[in-house]
């Protein structure tokens, strides 16, 4: 009888709808970037530039198996979903207490994990071996699993899936040791594969001539970061990684389409509407995995739907996101010497002699890129784009060895110059011109991957290179508050609200920290029933 009641009751439960996803973020944070457009801007304003100095720790959740959390939590209706390698935990977002956990002990590999997706009564995340897992968001019960790529074909997975309409979109990692990148969509209800779009054309297809034939099947162009989505245009924007072998291009002469590119994909069909390649024939491992951030803005007298993108190659781009038309590119770092600029068609004007070489070639930016997958944000009220940037050059080496996939061969590598350590800055860019409005220099060893979140309270929160969560004024970068987390940071913060209280959360290497405004403690009466187990 209980069972019959439960079976009847479950489908009536509150569902996270596509409309909810379009309205995020509000008090909830429902996608990796908070919103479909990748702006990472929260309308919450209880924490603002005048009171953020009263921010205090509210709770800490220790991830027992955590070594280097890169996860961005989701929050829905007071429940936080936080991932780690092959596992996901549901927490009470007010107290950090665990509600349920799911760990995939049978995954073939351990990889970092960057987050989950939510739709209906389900949460989705990927195990390291490219298994997409759907769980009941209330109980953690497994609904279905789908292995969508093989470790034996050079694939692994770290990304947060993207839920769009009735489907879940995922990608793959592994492009540094050879594979063939793709984006794929699965039915949220059954796990059935709906489409798969390879980032490297097949033999005989348009673009295949930009590769040598032997690398068509192994040329990388992996899809390891989640994407953004424009509901009105019904287009998903997804970036692709480097061509393989990363640092030696002699075996893959040509542009190597569509590596180091941004793809606009129809999520209904999986067809590519347009693509734009930032770095043709890349030899510096400059994956295009910076966030494609969607905004509407006037450009040369007319309103344009644009996509902003701070690329690892050091240029800030704006493209028309309807057509993929190149509009403009501007350097957003000073240490940039591989190209004189970008021509009218969006193609880099190369500086000769900057390719990796057997004895090493100095080039800038570094392998880690001028920016990378750490989340930028856009604040519509200030009209500024906030990007974590790295000023660094590297010595790039190449090796012409015969490329053998899945043998940890990358065709060379990049090395830091000991006397020229990298330096991070948080920069606020003018979206139209890419010019710097202000910058906030960061101390530290140059190894972080932490990003930003913008709030309507006029505060930008970001993780710095010394393991601190920092709050600055969105208008001018003035320091407002900071907290030392005791560990390096490799994740981006989020903000959400429960019971009228705003919180800010960021994952450190082994823990999830949540902050809120100081409130005097209220005495709680101890209920005898709770201590019954101790009698």
């Amino acid at each position, binding site marked *: *009888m*209980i*069972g*019959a*009641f*439960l*079976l009847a*009751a*479950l489908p009536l*439960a509150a569902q996270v709808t596509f409309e909810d996803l379009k309205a995020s973020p509000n008090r909830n944070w429902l996608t990796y970037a908070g919103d479909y457009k990748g702006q990472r801007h929260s309308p919450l304003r209880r924490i603002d530039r005048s009171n953020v100095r009263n921010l205090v720790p509210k709770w800490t959740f220790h991830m027992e198996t955590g070594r280097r959390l890169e996860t961005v939590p989701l929050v829905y209706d*007071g*429940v936080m979903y936080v991932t780690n390698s092959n596992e996901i935990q549901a927490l*009470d977002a*007010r*107290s950090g*207490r*665990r*509600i*349920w956990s799911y760990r*995939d*002990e*049978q995954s*073939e*590999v*351990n990889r970092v994990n960057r987050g989950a997706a939510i739709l209906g009564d389900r949460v989705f995340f990927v195990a390291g071996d490219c*298994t997409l897992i759907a769980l*009941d968001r*209330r*109980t*953690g*019960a*497994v*609904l*279905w*699993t789908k292995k969508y790529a093989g470790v034996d074909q050079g694939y692994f997975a770290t990304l947060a899936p993207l839920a769009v309409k009735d489907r879940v979109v995922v990608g793959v990692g592994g492009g540094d040791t050879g594979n063939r990148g793709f984006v794929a969509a699965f039915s949220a209800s059954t796990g059935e594969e709906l489409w798969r779009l390879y980032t490297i054309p097949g033999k005989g297809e348009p673009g295949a001539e930009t590769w040598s034939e032997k690398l068509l099947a192994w040329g990388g162009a992996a899809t390891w970061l989640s994407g953004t989505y424009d509901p009105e245009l019904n287009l998903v924007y997804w970036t692709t990684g480097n061509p393989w072998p990363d640092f030696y291009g002699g075996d893959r002469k040509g542009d190597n389409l569509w590596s180091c590119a941004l793809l606009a994909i129809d999520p209904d069909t999986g067809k590519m509407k347009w693509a734009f390649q930032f770095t043709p024939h890349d030899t510096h491992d400059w994956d295009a995995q910076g966030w494609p951030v969607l905004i509407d803005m006037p450009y040369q007298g007319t309103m344009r739907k644009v996509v902003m993108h701070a690329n690892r190659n050091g240029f800030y781009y704006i493209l028309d996101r309807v057509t993929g038309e190149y509009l403009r590119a501007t350097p957003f770092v000073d240490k940039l010497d591989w190209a004189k600029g970008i021509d009218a068609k969006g193609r880099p004007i190369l500086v000769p002699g900057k390719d990796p070489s057997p004895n090493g070639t100095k080039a800038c930016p570094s392998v880690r890129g001028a920016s990378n997958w750490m989340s930028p944000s856009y604040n519509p009220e200030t009209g500024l784009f906030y990007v974590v940037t790295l000023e660094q050059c590297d010595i790039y080496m190449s090796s012409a060895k015969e490329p053998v996939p899945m043998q940890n061969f990358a065709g060379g590598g990049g090395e830091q110059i000991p006397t020229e350590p990298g330096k991070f800055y948080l920069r606020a860019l003018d979206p139209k011109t890419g010019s710097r409005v202000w910058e906030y220099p960061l101390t530290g060893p140059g190894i972080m991957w932490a990003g930003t979140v913008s709030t309507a309270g006029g505060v930008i929160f970001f993780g710095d290179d010394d393991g601190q969560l920092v709050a600055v004024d969105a208008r001018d970068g003035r320091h407002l508050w900071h907290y030392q987390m005791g560990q390096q940071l490799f994740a981006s913060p989020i903000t959400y609200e429960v019971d009228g209280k705003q919180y800010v959360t960021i994952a450190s290497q082994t823990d999830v920290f949540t902050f809120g405004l100081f409130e005097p403690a*209220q005495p*709680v*009466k*101890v*209920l005898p*029933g*709770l201590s*019954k*187990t101790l009698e």
Partner: protein
Amino acid sequence: MRRLVFTLFAASSLWGQQPLNHPDNPFDGDPDAIERGKKVYMGSCGGCHGGTGEGGRGPNLRDGRLIRRSTDFQVLNTIKKGVPGSDMPPTNLPDERIWELVAYVRALGAPASETSPPGNPTRGEEVYRNAGCANCHAISGRGGALGPDLTNIGGTRSYGILRESIEKPGDRLTPGYQPVTVQMKDGRTLSGVVKNYTNYDLQMAGRDGQLHLFQIADLTDVQLSMKSLMPADYATRLSRDDMTDLLAYLSRRTLRPADARAARERRRQGR
């Protein structure tokens, strides 16, 4: 003295963590060999180590680190030479018989899906349905939420544990499934299973199938039951065949029917 040092080494090597370059078990995962090993085990080992390796006078052979951290060769040596200073005697069985015994001992602790449990899984599914298991448990999203999800139960629990959990659930409460009733300030009460609680807040799954997150300040009473919702009478309610078939069905509930040997190897290497 020399013999003592040698046998001590054999015993202590069970705890060794370095993988040694020793022969693998030729019968690893072989169902026939496991069956032969089981016969020897029941005759000579079960008396001390328990019928399903759960332990007794001798250590638990199913769940502990003792077995997981040992190579097959180390287990073979321990069986062969015994453990001096303990009740574990040496044996003069030929190596082949001991390897079969090792294969069986490994199968005791392996996830049920990696063994070859007897019984008819199709009939077992009927037993599962008729016995009302789905009232509280879910498989692939179908069923209740008051008991643990069973979708991957064969991939994560050994056959022995599965059987024990059904036949002798006892008073042991599974974390996250302790029955609870709370009373709210407006007088309403809500029952379900408690996911977590402290003196300051409480998270529960209600009988309504929903999550409920409370701050203790919003409650006037909390009653935790010490009695599991899992019925304790299945051992008598189900016939022996029904139980075997039910276990055959549950043992096959796995999300990854991967190669059993490869999976075991990964676990052994700690990956």
